[in-house]
């Protein structure tokens, strides 16, 4: 579904992502793991159009979206949930969700799906997003992303700032989404959580892919274990 080929991107004319290729098939959950500063966030932002691409290309369902602006990418069926979430702090949960569906009006059935997934959001539907806790904001960010009925959900470090229990809950929600047929691409620092969920994974360090394969294989890989799983 998503083909990223030799992508290069960076800031101030200095590339941080140096020729990364990633593929995501329909219905798959693909993880990108790597330490801080590896380039995961830069990579995802470039794929979604938040950053300009300096080399390589991105294809989605056969068409090139390399030079698409992020608001156009959002309209072709890809929803991106960045680490900073970028919610609308003075708008209510309901309004945030409604905007997720832009330019269409929010679909009630999609809304109930989101509320089913995140019952706490329904409880707080009138609450201003800026006053919610980290965990609730994360739920809202994902919920908002779902309102446009995306076919591909991209998340950047969804567990940022979440306590372990909430992080696990977050991944349970993602698992539920996967069962419903959602294709997911997620960059994550909390490696055990994400490798449990993912089908395949890539290891990104210093701007390039060091390793890739089935998630189960990577979990058993001694290098991965030493570097990311805290196993001596």
């Amino acid at each position: 579904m998503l083909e990223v080929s030799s992508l290069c991107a960076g800031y101030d004319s200095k590339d941080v992502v140096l020729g990364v290729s990633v593929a995501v098939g329909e219905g798959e959950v693909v993880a990108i793991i790597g330490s801080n500063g590896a380039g995961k966030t830069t990579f995802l932002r470039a794929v979604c159009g938040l950053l300009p691409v300096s080399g390589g290309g991105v294809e989605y369902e056969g068409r090139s979206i390399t030079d698409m602006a992020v608001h156009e990418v959002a309209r072709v069926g890809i929803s991106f949930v960045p680490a900073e979430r970028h919610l609308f702090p003075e708008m209510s949960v309901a309004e945030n969700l409604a905007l997720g569906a832009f330019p269409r009006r929010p679909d009630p059935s999609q809304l109930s799906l989101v509320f089913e997934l995140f019952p706490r959001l329904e409880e707080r539907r009138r609450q201003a997003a800026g006053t919610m806790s980290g965990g609730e904001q994360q739920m809202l960010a994902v919920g908002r992303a779902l309102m446009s009925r995306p076919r591909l959900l991209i998340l950047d470090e969804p567990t940022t700032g979440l306590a372990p229990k909430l992080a696990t809950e977050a991944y349970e929600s993602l698992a539920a989404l996967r069962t419903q047929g959602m294709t997911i691409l997620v960059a994550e620092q909390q490696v055990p959580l994400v490798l449990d969920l993912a089908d395949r994974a890539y290891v990104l360090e210093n701007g390039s892919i060091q390793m890739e394969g089935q998630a189960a294989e990577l979990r058993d890989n001694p290098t991965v274990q030493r570097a990311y799983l805290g196993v001596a």
Partner: protein
Amino acid sequence: MTAVVLDGIVLGLQFGLLGVGLTIVYGMGGVLNLAYGSMAVVTATVVSITMRSGWPAGPAVLLGIVTAAGFGLLLNLTIMKPVYRRRGEDRVLLSLLLTIGVAFIVDGFLVWRYPIEALSLSVGGDPVLILGVPMRTGSLLASAITILAGGALILFFRATTTGKAVRSVIQDEIGARLCGVNPAAVRRLIFTLSGALVGLVAVTQSMTSPVPISAGFEITILALLVTVVGGLGSIRGAFLAGLILGMVNAMSSFYIGAYVTTIILLIAAALTILLRPSGLFGERT
């Protein structure tokens, strides 16, 4: 006393709407449009000239407002492009300087060609008694229109999809883009709306007192003061600040004098910047 208060409300409503037009443009992208007052006098000129050549008031006013809206759109499509390429303080500074340039060109041209022109719309009918004070129908109509416009704006921003999209860009532009909102399109809309609003204010103001073509800079400064006191980017703030400053203006003019009144308004804005830069309702700067 009641008369002064009522005058203050009438004036305050005008000030409020005036401030809203300028503040939404700032809220959109940290841009100060100092050609704002020029848009108002463009409307005044258009309406005045067309009515002079026989047009009835309705179509003339419509044309005037549409012209101002178009002016706003034109500004956005031309001068604003290099402005939006900058960030933060540089962006505001450049927008300020370029729009002053536009204001000078437009004001200079209009004052040159129509030096004694002033828009004045007379609304017929006898004064109506409000709370024992005879109020001119012009003032009442102006206030009614302003309240309706304000209400329509509130409805637009709260209830319509586009309005929410506008607010989303103000609150978190990246978040808005992630939702599929095109900020450039929203900016075009807001600039156009800003022009229409200031044109409307020119028209309603002319129902209470003549609006001379030379008033461009004055209108811009007034809008700036209201916007600063209300909080740059805050619509609520602009309305409230407008009402307060309008009241202050009416009282001060009545009890003290014209020049001191202006000084008081200026001091109000300066004090706001010094003591509470975010204004009444503005975002934390």
